[in-house]
């Protein structure tokens, strides 16, 4: 038995120790752990909480339970083989991560301008579909966290349609490996555009239902408004991005700011938090921003479909793999590329030596990782039930926190 775990009472204490010393506790204070196996932590996140009765004094997140050595693996793999690993970082929005990664490598190779428009539009189409799916999980499980069960079922039902559409394109439901460096795995399947348009028409009224069912629900507002307020200045200092930053009132979306891919040609709004039910940057704002973003993504999908059925129509001669390079050997140098994921700014740092098609270093800047780091700051002095509401509103995917 070569791989047998040997039991020792100190093992757990040494590997995942409690950070707060017991002697520093004041009268009436206690430490308790939420997670790593707890439904409201959305994965294997462990929160060490110091409380005085119901009041949270301090939160210390312990992460790393899902660490899969992305950066170490990336040191020994060619650029194109890293894509499946990128999928597994943020497994709720693999298309977006792939898109970012492929874009980064293309920029290093200097082939960004040569990518056919049809490929770019398909990429944006699938990325926006995936963004809706990711936000649906975020909103659905958030409702679940604070006791609303029905929205979760409704959203999972609608997300299923998206997963089936994406499964149709590449065969996988969650981890696609569809966006390749320089192109795509396949062109869209026949009649995909029609089905996608049907889905878009189907989803629009569903979003309105969601708004009445969850977002404007009185109980939901009571639980989330004025809770976990994240002031804008603090958010920027903590590097918080994505819907969380926008909910704090800044119109900052990398799709607009950087204008990568074909986003400058598309028309969409950037919803921001206004504090309609409480304070700017509270949990309600964050959820509402996500919900509005779903409608904006639908707008983008509709525009992509129009393009893909008219001027960039399907063509027998068109092969999305035409530009996929046989040898990926970028010039030596350091590169940082970033793009807007459903959760925030996903960044990749590459260092290449110009001699091999394996990166010297490939670092991923995960948005969930950075967004989680603000949690201890905004959950001081709240009730334990509010802590659950705050953690849910961060929209964490532990696969990306731990990488």
């Amino acid at each position, binding site marked *: 038995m070569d791989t047998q775990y*040997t039991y020792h009472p100190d093992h757990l204490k040494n590997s995942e120790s409690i950070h707060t010393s017991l002697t520093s506790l004041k009268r009436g204070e206690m430490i308790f752990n939420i997670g790593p196996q707890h439904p409201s932590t959305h994965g294997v996140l462990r929160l060490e909480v110091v409380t005085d009765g119901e009041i949270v004094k301090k939160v210390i997140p312990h992460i790393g339970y899902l660490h899969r050595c992305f950066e170490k693996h990336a040191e020994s793999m060619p650029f194109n083989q890293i894509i499946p690993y990128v999928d597994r970082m943020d497994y709720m929005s693999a298309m977006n991560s792939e898109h970012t990664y492929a874009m980064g490598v293309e920029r290093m190779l200097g082939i960004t301008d040569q990518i056919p428009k049809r490929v770019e539009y398909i990429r944006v189409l699938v990325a926006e579909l995936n963004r809706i799916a990711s936000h649906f999980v975020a909103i659905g499980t958030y409702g679940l966290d604070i006791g609303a069960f029905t929205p979760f079922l409704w959203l999972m039902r609608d997300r299923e349609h998206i997963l089936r559409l994406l499964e149709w394109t590449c065969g996988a439901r969650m981890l696609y490996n569809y966006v390749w460096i320089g192109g795509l795995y396949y062109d869209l399947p026949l009649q995909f555009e029609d089905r996608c348009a049907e889905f878009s028409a189907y989803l629009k009224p569903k979003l309105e239902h969601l708004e009445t069912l969850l977002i404007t629900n009185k109980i939901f507002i009571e639980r989330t408004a004025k809770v976990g307020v994240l002031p804008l200045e603090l958010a*920027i200092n*903590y590097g918080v991005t994505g819907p969380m930053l926008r909910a704090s009132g800044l119109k900052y979306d990398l799709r607009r700011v950087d204008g990568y891919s074909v986003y400058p040609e598309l028309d969409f709004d950037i919803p921001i938090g206004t504090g309609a039910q409480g304070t700017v940057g509270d949990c309600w704002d964050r959820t509402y921003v996500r919900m509005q973003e779903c409608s904006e993504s639908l707008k983008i999908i509709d525009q992509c479909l129009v393009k893909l059925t008219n001027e960039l129509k399907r063509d027998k001669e068109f092969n999305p793999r035409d530009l996929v390079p046989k040898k990926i050997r970028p010039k030596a140098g350091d590169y940082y590329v970033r793009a807007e994921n459903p959760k925030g700014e996903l960044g990749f740092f590459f260092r290449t030596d110009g001699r091999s098609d394996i990166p010297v270093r490939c670092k991923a800047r995960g948005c969930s990782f950075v967004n989680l780091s603000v949690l201890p700051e905004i959950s001081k002095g709240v009730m334990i039930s509010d802590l659950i509401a705050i953690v849910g509103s961060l929209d964490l995917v532990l696969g990306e926190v731990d*990488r």
Partner: protein
Amino acid sequence: MTTDLIFKLLKSCFGQKVMEINLNDQPRSIEITSQENRELFTFLRDNNQLYFDMLSSITGIDNGPEVNTMELIYNLYSIPFDSHLMVKIKLEDRESPIAPTVSDIWKTANWHEREIFDLLGIRFEGHPDLRRILLPSDWEGHPLRKDDVLQKRYHGIKVDY
């Protein structure tokens, strides 16, 4: 402001501490000294022409035993000016690398620096809470160092499979 101008401005304010500008990188990078550079970082954040208010990422790189250096790369972004800057630091002492913390300038650096300490063993002077973040606390070694040797067993489980 272009990177050339930023470089000139920094050079005029900090002289020798600002070493060189690299035009091959995307975004262009500026290399600075590893000693006493906290003032420079504060300047980058607070100067009203630069205003790099967002620290996107910090990357640590081990250049291996032959080169015998480590590197830290800071990716800064200025939201109001929409400008990027990559700042590099070279750490000469590879055996016990140490760099000043920027976690009080940009709070996001706290976790980034902990991650670098965890995976590369670079210590950050003045960091409020420098401990492992991704690996278990009783893990031995820093896996992203080029000469790191994996421990044979961890709690009785064979590590190298």
